[in-house]
């Protein structure tokens, strides 16, 4: 019997560019409200798509407050608990402001919150870098299926999913367009090959 050629299912769009814009605007206001301003605030993006999201949030906060806010990027590759079950990959850059993270309100920013293991790794990485006063978590999408007792403080959209579904976030900075899609193809296990496009666990 002839086999059907495999067609890539792009899935359906659940957040378009406007939705993402509005979600980030709301999150930026929530962060400011909770922090009572932008003092001692540091937005730390998790590679890969958390980094441009952190920068967008910083821009929105700067528009509201009229002054800039510190941003940085955090790579958690070395802190993952699944290092031994995948081929290694080169870590991304961790960059922090010169003033460090001690005493700051650090907001971790990521695109998708899923099992929580990435965030656990990020918390471990943070503890090697210093001692923030407070750590909060902002994500564009929370798709559920937590494997650890971790929850986000700021969520762009709660997106109930089946484990068999795939959530893909595309951002203008990394993928040329802003959208979040959900499809039937399951997420591949946490990471695939080296230098792979980011897949969230």
């Amino acid at each position: 019997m002839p086999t059907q050629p495999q067609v890539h299912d792009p899935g359906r769009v659940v957040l378009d560019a406007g939705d993402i814009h509005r979600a980030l605007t709301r999150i930026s206001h929530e962060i400011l409200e909770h922090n009572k301003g932008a003092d001692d605030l540091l937005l730390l993006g998790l590679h890969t798509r958390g980094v441009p999201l952190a920068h967008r949030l910083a821009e929105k906060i700067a528009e509201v407050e009229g002054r800039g806010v510190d941003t940085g990027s955090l790579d958690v590759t070395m802190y993952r608990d699944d290092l031994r079950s995948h081929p290694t990959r080169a870590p991304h850059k961790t960059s922090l402001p010169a003033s460090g993270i001690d005493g700051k309100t650090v907001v971790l920013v990521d695109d998708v919150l899923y099992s929580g293991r990435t965030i656990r790794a990020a918390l471990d990485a943070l503890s090697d870098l210093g001692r923030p006063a407070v750590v909060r978590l902002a994500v564009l999408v929370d798709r559920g299926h937590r494997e650890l007792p971790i929850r986000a403080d700021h969520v762009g959209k709660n997106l109930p999913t089946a484990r068999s579904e795939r959530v893909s976030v595309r951002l203008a900075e990394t993928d040329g367009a802003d959208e979040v899609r959900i499809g039937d193809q399951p997420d591949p296990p946490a990471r695939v090959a080296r230098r792979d496009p980011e897949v969230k666990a």
Partner: protein
Amino acid sequence: MTRHLLSIDDLDAADIAEIFDTAAEMHDVQRRAVKKLPALRGRTVINLFFEDSTRTRSSFEIAGKWLSADVINLSAKGSSASKGESLRDTVLTVTAMGVDGLVVRHGASGAAHQISQWVDVPVVNAGDGMHEHPTQALLDAYTLTRRLGSLEGKHVAIVGDLTHSRVFRSNIKCLLALGASVTAVAPPTLMPAGAGEWAKSAGFATSYELDPVLPDADAVMMLRVQRERMSGGYFPTAREYTVGYGLTRDRLGLLGADTPILHPGPMNRGLEISADAADSVDRSVVLDQVSAGVAVRMSVLYHLLAGEETR
């Protein structure tokens, strides 16, 4: 990435780039208050050194420890190898204790390769006889990349005792793989037998004279005159070697003001390198090499030991 790192031949340009990318991140860890990453937690690495070494052994030891591995140093002196145990028995004994990786230095060329045939854990060659010293070549190239940007089209002069140098053999391969051009400079007695044919097939130049090479060099790599390997007769006197091939104060004038000078150490000051060259603030990158060595070895251990278990 390969399972073992025995020779630069085990790596292609993409592998080298990946090792350098990771090393750059590891380098940043050295500036942190907490110099520790958990990537190799619970793994045990044995540094098996059958030949004396200070910097390479401690560099691997620090690299392993900063990745949270348990690192054990064994040297031939004071171990059962000095009681006449065979290399194979020594290696099998220590691996039977449950180690996850071996870093091996041995005076015999090919020892690391032979050991990799006996064990089922990754083996890193930390220098085998006159054969190769791949992590030294990687750290040299990494140091140059940070200093010069891409090595593509850059001209590197490697000067000194080429016959006995495993660093030279590894460096030639690594630099050529990264697109640099290389001129190997040595007196005829210290130019490896068959260097002409090798140079022709691999694509590097050779010279018996140093002075014409220096003005065009983007970097100069001085090698140690390995007195311990010489029974004499390679050159009449140390003074004569210095006059012909030492990086003397006068020769520094032939180099660009910020042309990096490398030396794998330990340096014979006054023989192959003058104090003026070794201590030149703008040009000497000798200490950069040492610091890069830890980062590059962290990167190598991470790529060989952290990933997918293949056993």
